[in-house]
C-alpha cells in the first residue's frame, strides 16, 4: 500500500463549518458522554463538508472538541478513509484482499491503471478520478469488489469498469 506523508498537511482555506454542519456537530455531541468521543463522526462531517481534511479543518475540529491538534493528527492518520489531501471527484477503491485477489483484482487494478494513466494514490489530470487500494470491504462473494465513492460496485470486471468510467461525470 502506498504510504502517505502526514506531518505537513497541505494548507487549505480557513475552515469554519457552515451552519448546517455546525448543527449536525451539536447533535453528534449530544450522543456521547465526552467531547473526544465525537472525534470520528465530526471528522466525517469535515470530510463531507470539504471533501478532504486540511490542516485548518483538523485544527478547527480540535478547537471544537477541546483536543490537542496533535491528537487529531494522530487519529486522522491512523484511519485510512480520511482524505489528507484533495481527491478527485470520484474515489475508485479497489479491494485487493484475498477473495478479490483470487478473483483477479490485480488484473482489474492494472486495467484501470493503464486506462487512466495514473498510479495508486494519484488523481487524473482532469480531476475526475483518484485510485486507491483498500483491504477487504465485505463484498467477497461478489469478487472482485470495489467501491466508487460510497457505493459498492460488484462484481466488477474491466468492461463494466470502462462503462462506469465513461458514465461518471
Amino acid at each position: 500500500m502506498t504510504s502517505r506523508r502526514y506531518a505537513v498537511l497541505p494548507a487549505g482555506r480557513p475552515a469554519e463549518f457552515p451552519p448546517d454542519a455546525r448543527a449536525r456537530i451539536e447533535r453528534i455531541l449530544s450522543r456521547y458522554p465526552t467531547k473526544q468521543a465525537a472525534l470520528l463522526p465530526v471528522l466525517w462531517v469535515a470530510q463531507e463538508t470539504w471533501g478532504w481534511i486540511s490542516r485548518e479543518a483538523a485544527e478547527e475540529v480540535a478547537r471544537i472538541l477541546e483536543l490537542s491538534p496533535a491528537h487529531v493528527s494522530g487519529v486522522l492518520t491512523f484511519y485510512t478513509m480520511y482524505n489528507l489531501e484533495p481527491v478527485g471527484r470520484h474515489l475508485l477503491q479497489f479491494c485487493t484482499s484475498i477473495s478479490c485477489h483470487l478473483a483477479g483484482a490485480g488484473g482489474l487494478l492494472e486495467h484501470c491503471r493503464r486506462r487512466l494513466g495514473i498510479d495508486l494514490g494519484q488523481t487524473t489530470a482532469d480531476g475526475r478520478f483518484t485510485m486507491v487500494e483498500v483491504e477487504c470491504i465485505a463484498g467477497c462473494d461478489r469478487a472482485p469488489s470495489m467501491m466508487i465513492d460510497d457505493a459498492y460496485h460488484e462484481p466488477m470486471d474491466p468492461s463494466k469498469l470502462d462503462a462506469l468510467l465513461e458514465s461518471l461525470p
Partner: protein
Amino acid sequence: MSAPAPPAPAAPPPPKKDTLTIVFDGKPIEVPPGINLIEAAKLAGIEIPHFCFHPRLSVVGQCRMCLVEIEGIPKIQAACTTPIKDGLAVKTTTQKVRESRAANMEFLLINHPLDCPICDQAGECKLQDNAFGYGEQRSRYDERKRQYAGYDRTAIGPHVVADMTRCIQCTRCIRFCQEIAGTGELTFLDRGGRTLVWTHDGKPLANDWSACAADVCPVGALTTKEFRFRRRVWDLKKTPSVCPGCNIGCNISIEDRDSVVYRFLPRLNPAVNDYWLCDYGRFLSESLNAREISKATVREGSDVRDAIVPAAVERIASEIRSTIETDGPSAIFFLGSAHLSNEENFLLRKIADHIGCGNRDVVVDRSRVRRMKSKTEWIEGDHAGANYAGARDMGLSPGPGGHGLTDVLEGRWIPQIVVVADASFAAAADDAEKVGRLRGARFLAVAARTANSLTRAADVVLPAASLAQKEGSFTNVQGRVQWFQRAFLPPPPARAHWELLLLLGVALGWGDRNWTPAAVRTQIREEVEGYDEVTEQELAGGGLMKKGLFVSTGAV
C-alpha cells in the same frame, strides 16, 4: 442424624501484611504493594529489560521487552502490566524468556541504523545496552531498512532534535508530553510498521520541560540540540548538585570533563523534581563555564590593580576595622544572596554579628513562576535564586534597628561600607540606578565570577567559584534542605565564596581557617531554628525538610 457439629471457631484472620512476597527465580523477597514486577525485580537485584515502562508514566505494555514467566500461567507475560500479587513466582532466566528477549531485540534492530559510533545516545542507549545484554549476535534481516525521509535529524522544537530512523515507538515521549507536561504536542502518526512520532503539522515541541522528552527517550531518536555531538557521554563525570535556576531546587547531576560543564541532567528526587527538569534550569549549565573575574583586584585612586586574594581580603577587613572605629559597626552593610549556600550566608551573618552590625539583607529577585511536578504534586517557584529561603533562615534580614537593602536602594540610608557576598547574579548588578545607590558607600567590596556594572564599580573584587566549583546546601521553597557537591576546583586564585568569607572572618578575628562547609553546618544545626536535624546523612539522601514544616507524605 446427629446434631450438626458446632461450627469450628473461625481461624483468626492472617495478620495483615504491608508487604507482599514475590519469588524471583526461586528467591523470595518482600516488596511494598503498588509497584509493578519490573520495580519489584529491581528491589531483588534483578534487571528485567524494558523500554516503554517508565515509573512515572502510564503503563502501556507496548514494547514487549519485559516478558517473564509466571508459575501457573502457561503464556509468557509482560512484567510491566502484570498486577502484583502475594506469592507470585516469577522466572526471569528461563530459555523461553531468553529467547523472547533476543527475538524482541532482533525486531527492534532490523530497522535501526547501525551507526552507534556516530549516535549521540551511545553510552546511554537502552537499545545498545539491551542488545549487548539480551540480543543475539547476528540478525537475519537483510531487507532495506525503513527510511523516514523528512523525519530524520530535524529540530522539532527549540531544544529537541528528532531522528525517526532511531525511534523504537515506545511512546514514552508522547506520554511525557501528555501526562506530565499536560501539553500533548507529540503523537503517533500513521500505523503499523510506518508509525512515527511527530507533532501536529510540524508545530514546535515547546513546553517548559521539552528536553525531558529527550531524557525519557531510551534511544537516540530524541536528543537535545544543546548537547548533540558535544561529548561522548562516557567521557563525562557526574556530580550531584542542585539547579541554580529557581527556588524549587531541582536535583541535578552536573556533567563535566576537564572542568568544563557540558550539561545538567535531572537527578531523581521524588519529593522535588522526580525525574524532570525545566528547560530554563537545564540549559543554565553552559552559564557555569563563564569566568570573567579571574583575579582579585583592588582600586587605588583611579587605578585598578591586581592583588593576591589574602591581601584583597585584608584590605576589606582593614576598611571595616577603621569604619568601626570612626562610625561604629552600624555604618556597614552586608548583602547576602539567594545564589549562595546556607553555609555562606550563615558565615556572612556571623561576621556581621561578630562586629555587632545589624545591617544585613538578601536581594529579592523574583522570577516568572516556574512549575515542577514532583511525584505527588506540582511545586511552584518564584525566585531567581535557589536559596532565597535558606538565606532568610540564616538570618539575612535586617537585625533589630538595622537597615535593609531597600533603605539603601531608595536612598534612605547611605552606608559607609557595602560588602556584596556575590555580585554575579544579583539583578541589581546591571541596574545603573541601583548600582549608583550601592556605590554611594565610601567603600564597596564584592565577590564575583562574572563581570557587570557592580563589579566594575567596586573597590575590591574577589574571584569566586561557580556552583560546580563548590559544595554546600540550599533550602528550597518547600523548606527542604538539599546538598550540592563540588564537581571540580575553581581555577586559582578563585575560591569558593565560603572560603573567601572565612578569610574575611578570620581577618576580623572570628572563625577558623580550617573550617569546611560541613563544620559550618554543625554550627547551623546548633544555632539555626529548624535545622537541628539536617544531618550529613540526611543531606546525602535527597535532603530533609527542616523542622516545623509539613513534610508531604507520599513522597518516597
